[in-house]
């Protein structure tokens, strides 16, 4: 507590401004720019990585040394990554695996088209 009065935490101020700027740039790229979609996506991805870097190195405790009982910051981060893995891989698995559009002679596909057509007609 005592030393928090002593100096301005420059590291945090810079990190905070940086993360705000990057967020604004990303928002601008998506909403205001005329860049092609591919470039927007690539740009946002890069910004996201940089953003994560800022958070981890300037705010979180990645740079901290191992604490008394052998806990390194990577410990908790490992759990975080495992969870992210479950969410992403799990979603891909359940959302796109086995929705068989091409099997069974395309029967499913066919039906869908018909429904689509019917809807189109009633729409007019």
């Amino acid at each position, binding site marked *: *507590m005592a030393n*928090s*009065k002593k100096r301005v935490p420059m590291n945090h101020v810079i990190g905070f401004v940086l993360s705000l700027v990057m967020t604004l740039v990303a928002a601008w790229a998506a909403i205001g720019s005329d860049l092609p979609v591919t470039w927007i996506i690539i740009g946002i991805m890069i910004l996201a990585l940089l953003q994560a870097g800022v958070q981890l190195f300037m705010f979180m405790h990645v740079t901290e040394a191992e604490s008394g009982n052998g806990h390194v910051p990577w410990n908790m981060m490992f*759990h975080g990554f495992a*969870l992210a893995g*479950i*969410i992403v891989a*799990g*979603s891909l*698995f*359940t*959302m796109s*695996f*086995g*929705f*068989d559009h091409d099997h069974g002679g395309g029967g499913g596909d066919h039906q869908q088209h018909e429904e689509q057509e019917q809807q189109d007609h009633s729409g007019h």
Partner: protein
Amino acid sequence: MHITDILVTGEPIIYGAMVSMALVGIALFFLLTYFKKWGWLWREWLTTVDHKKIGVMYILSALLMLFRGGVDAMMMRVQLAFPDLGFLNSQHYNEIFTTHGTIMIIFMAMPFLIGLMNIIVPLQIGARDFAFPYLNALSFWSFFFGMALFNISFVIGGSPDAGWTSYTPLSGAAMSPGPGQNFYLMGLQLSGIGTLATGINLMVTILKMRAPGMKLFHMPIFTWSTLVTCFIIVFAFPILTVALALLTIDRIFGSQFFTLTGEGLPMMWANLFWMWGHPEVYIVILPAFGIFSEVIATFAKKRLFGYNVMVWSMIVIALLSFLVWVHHFFTMGAGAFVNSVFSISTMLIAVPTGVKIFNWLATLYKSKIEFTVPMLWSLAFIPSFILGGVTGVMLGMAAADYQFHNSYFLIAHFHYVLIAGTVFACFAGLVFWYPKMFGHKMNERLGKWAFWLFFFGFHVCFFPQYFLGLDGMPRRLFITNVVEWLPLNVISTVGAFGMGLGFIVFVYNVYYSFRYSERETTGDSWNGNGRTLEWATTTPVPYYNFATVPYVDEIDPYVRMKEEGKTTFEESKVKPIHMPSYTGQPFIMMAFLGLASFGLVFEWMYVAVFGLLGGVVMMIRRSFDYDDGYYVPVEEIKRTEKKARGL
């Protein structure tokens, strides 16, 4: 804009509710003013950072929500037993089952358990408060304003009506225009902040603030269950936060994450919802397991059988709970392989759960059981919960679930686990720790009445629902005048009213005990059977909890302390105690964010921006707040302890 534009009009029941709410409000205002209690309310409660008081406020709110959710339930049961009466129309029915489900899970079960954790966990590990008391107050007020926001929906703007699962595309802007769904999104988002913060707060408290010598495997089992639950909260709640935010952006700002148009993925909502939702049901059952373990060990007067196994099975359950979510949408259309994988992982979860059941039975085996009220709830839990677990495994068989899904069979399953598990535990825990909180026990005779009414009511209400499900009655249906279903529906409604009666007796008992119960003189309220540190404190618990923190190097340390005649007050070792100061900031900050959420619900952007700015200003104030708390002088500690211990 006129007031009638946002008030819900045209429903006699809702008019009645409005009038009674206004009357209660006026009465409270009048009473507080008349007895000059406003200052007291602010100083003692609204600004408190004491974990015990915050816990009491959590529990009071949860009881209120149990009442509100219970009234919703009764109304649904009346409609189902007398479908020709035209008691509720379909829209009203939809709103009621939505608010019932959401309130019971988010605003009843979780806060009830979090309230008990608030009060008991620091006492069990020999801590003087949470690691972050300010944050704890913040958590409570975020929950409180989230709850308030969600609850006013039925008189202002109209309630959400897409089920507690809020599936897209139904809950999207195209199919549910108006503020209803926004209430759901913002209410949950706001209270979710608090839940997440509590998860972190309790985790740090348990990992860092245990009494000297207390290793993880010396901790009381309720504290263990809290720790495991906190891990689930910290990993699962961000998923809900993100899902709610995406849907909010969809609805309010017109993006297309979950819409049918614009290549949205409506099914992704179900996926994300249950990635949080299944862990969520374990968030509300693991602490319940912890409570039952404490109660059973205390009244069987034995150390909990297989303590290590109990802990490991909770950890395994927590891990598995993240790997089964698809069982909630087997019928969505993923292939046989996907369903099979999740079918197996689902059934696996029954294994550690079964292990726990056998450990409780082994604890009871050949013990001298004392049939107190908390013990009755705990004993009733075992067979009732087994019925819920077994039907869970039936639902877990993907092929069979195509029949069971969304029928009353499912409804019966989750009420058997949630009521016989979580609700029984809330009652057991509240009665068990009541003397610690309020300085007197609840009356045992009335407590038994409440128990038996609720217990029989519960089985009469939900057991027939398994068969209604097998007879093909779907959930969330308001027209049920199908002759085959009627008798069972009537029986079920009778049971529901039995539970209602039990609840009334319980609440009356609170009043009765306040008036007539003997005041506690020792801290070890249950005939000296206490085993863990919370019973070593005096009653009422001094605000600093422990004058001196004992050295602990075993399970159930208080048993030995009693044998050796030790207490938590060693006069020679008393030192000044560092305590946090009370502050109104958490309340004000969350009031601002509550206002912002209210603005977003009606999409009044100026209100929302104003509220958010207010919240940010409060956060900045907090950042420059160097209040380090204060020290309780040794003299005062000695005086307090001597008085409390009658020395």
